[in-house]
């Protein structure tokens, strides 16, 4: 009796402490949202207070200046297409590398694992040279091809670990039924890989959506933008104009936060699965 009572009061203290800490964690979002609808004068004099009047006009101006729909569309297009292609390419490669454990495929796997520690900044300078030589600069397909290259090592690595856990008997049964290797993969193995497909999709989405450096190098001319590119360009022009900058930032973070809130369960599972394999 005594023990449970003490335990409970301890839990309540922990609970209150954690709620306070949670509020502290959310304070930056409070500042961001509240100040995004203030007039410039209101924002300078009382950044912590609630707005005196709500200025939705800030949003429409920022919306026009950043050309938000274009940036959003490009970000979505790049993220989705890169993801779909990466998942298909890497699932196929990992499956074949596990099932045909030849010396070449073992060597390839070692190379992929080793490549995972190569920092992007270590190869970005010659990468610009390579991409401009073969005509991938200032184009969305070019940027997507870059993401395919950079995504391969980790995605193959994650699928590789997963395929090992799929029992061979299932595939043998399908082979007896007369399916060839491609049929077995698409009808039997690929659907079984779904949990890892979700993990790879989540990890790659968070990376590609938020990436600034690679698109800034590939989309150099500034004609094409993604959300991070548009935000950066905006800050270059409107330094300290917080009444425009904050609404632009809210629009920038909103899509990924909505994505997170809807996909939260999968994101948590995906990160856990990715970490265990990593």
């Amino acid at each position, binding site marked *: 009796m005594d023990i449970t009572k003490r335990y409970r009061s301890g*839990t309540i203290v*922990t*609970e209150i*402490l*954690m709620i306070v800490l*949670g509020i502290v*964690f959310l*304070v*930056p979002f409070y*500042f*961001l949202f509240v100040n995004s609808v203030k007039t410039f004068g209101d*924002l300078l004099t009382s*950044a*912590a207070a609630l707005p005196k009047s709500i200025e939705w006009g800030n949003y429409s101006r920022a919306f026009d200046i950043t050309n938000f729909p274009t940036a959003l569309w490009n970000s979505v297009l790049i993220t989705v297409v890169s993801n779909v292609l990466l998942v298909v*390419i890497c699932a*196929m490669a990992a*499956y*074949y590398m596990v099932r*045909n454990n030849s010396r070449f495929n073992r060597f*390839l796997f070692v190379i*992929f694992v080793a*490549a995972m*520690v*190569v*920092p992007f*900044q*270590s190869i*970005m*300078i*010659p*990468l610009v*040279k*390579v991409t401009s030589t*073969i005509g991938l600069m200032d184009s969305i397909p070019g940027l997507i*091809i870059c993401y*395919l290259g950079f995504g391969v*090592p980790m995605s193959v690595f994650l699928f590789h670990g997963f395929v090992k856990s799929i029992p061979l008997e299932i595939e043998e049964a399908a082979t007896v039924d007369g399916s060839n*290797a491609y049929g077995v*993969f698409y009808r039997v193995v690929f659907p079984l890989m779904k949990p890892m497909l979700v993990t790879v999709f989540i990890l790659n989405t*968070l990376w590609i959506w*938020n*990436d600034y*450096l690679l698109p800034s190098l590939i989309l150099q001319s500034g004609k094409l933008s993604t*959300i*991070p590119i548009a*935000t*950066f360009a905006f*800050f270059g022009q409107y330094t300290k104009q*917080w009444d425009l*900058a904050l609404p632009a930032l809210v629009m920038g*973070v909103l899509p*990924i*936060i909505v*994505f*997170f*809130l809807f996909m939260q369960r999968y994101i*948590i599972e995906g990160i*856990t699965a990715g*970490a*265990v394999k990593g």
Partner: protein
Amino acid sequence: MRKGENGMNHKKTSRLTQQVVFVGPAILFFILIIAIPFVLGLYYSFTDWDGISGKATGVGFDNYKQIFMHDSSFRDSFWFTAKFTILGVVITNVAGFFLAYLLTKPLKTRNFLRTVFFMPNVIGGLLLGFIWQFIFVKGFSALGSATGISFFNLPWLGTENTAFWALVIVFVWQTAGYLMVIYISSLNNVPKDILEAAEIDGASRFQVLRSIIIPLIMPAATVCLFLAISWSFKMFDLNLSLTKGGPFGSTESVAMNIYNEAFSKNRYGLGTAKAIIFFVIVAVITSLQVKFTKSKEVEA
């Protein structure tokens, strides 16, 4: 006999076709985007390539000599990055672990709080840096004048020391929740019967934490340290949008130093040599860390 040979040949070619169809695309993109630039980078690091003329004359080890003997900005950025990595990695791991430890207790709000602590992580470093620029410049001073706490009245992005800590604060705020998720799944796998047995034997909560829980979650610590080290060592986006390396270049990370060397100063040869050094350092540190923490892992 002949038929058999033909069959063998047929089997061989179809195996080759399968290898190409299944693995070919991955190899192609990997070679094009990672392998070729990596090899080219090695080559250019021994030249005076300026990126524009396309001419690159070999200069032997001159770039490396220049970097090690005369480049104080690279050395400064290296020490900044090392200091940032040590503090950032330790603090975010301690924070992530304790958030996880407390949020595996039966709290009513625990699922909601997990969401809150994780949320900053889904936003990219570039946007986070801009958001926090506003908070350090305007938000903190508003809190300072409202509460009178001097912590908020510091010139956060204006001095070398506070700008450094500003980056650490945002880094921890961004990454602790991600590590928390990994530590939570590891804590959930600690066998309940061992914890109960320890409690019956009269072990204090601190003893249980130190002698049972921490050794058992070392696999998660291996992963979390690896992630945190590579995030902090490779930090660029956050650095660019929050401090831009300032004030006076004091918070310029190695990644940003490499970027500026090539793309602002057009010294591509020197930049690639720095990039190769950076790669070697990252590879050595992360593999040493994984080796070290792996040796601390135990089975339940």
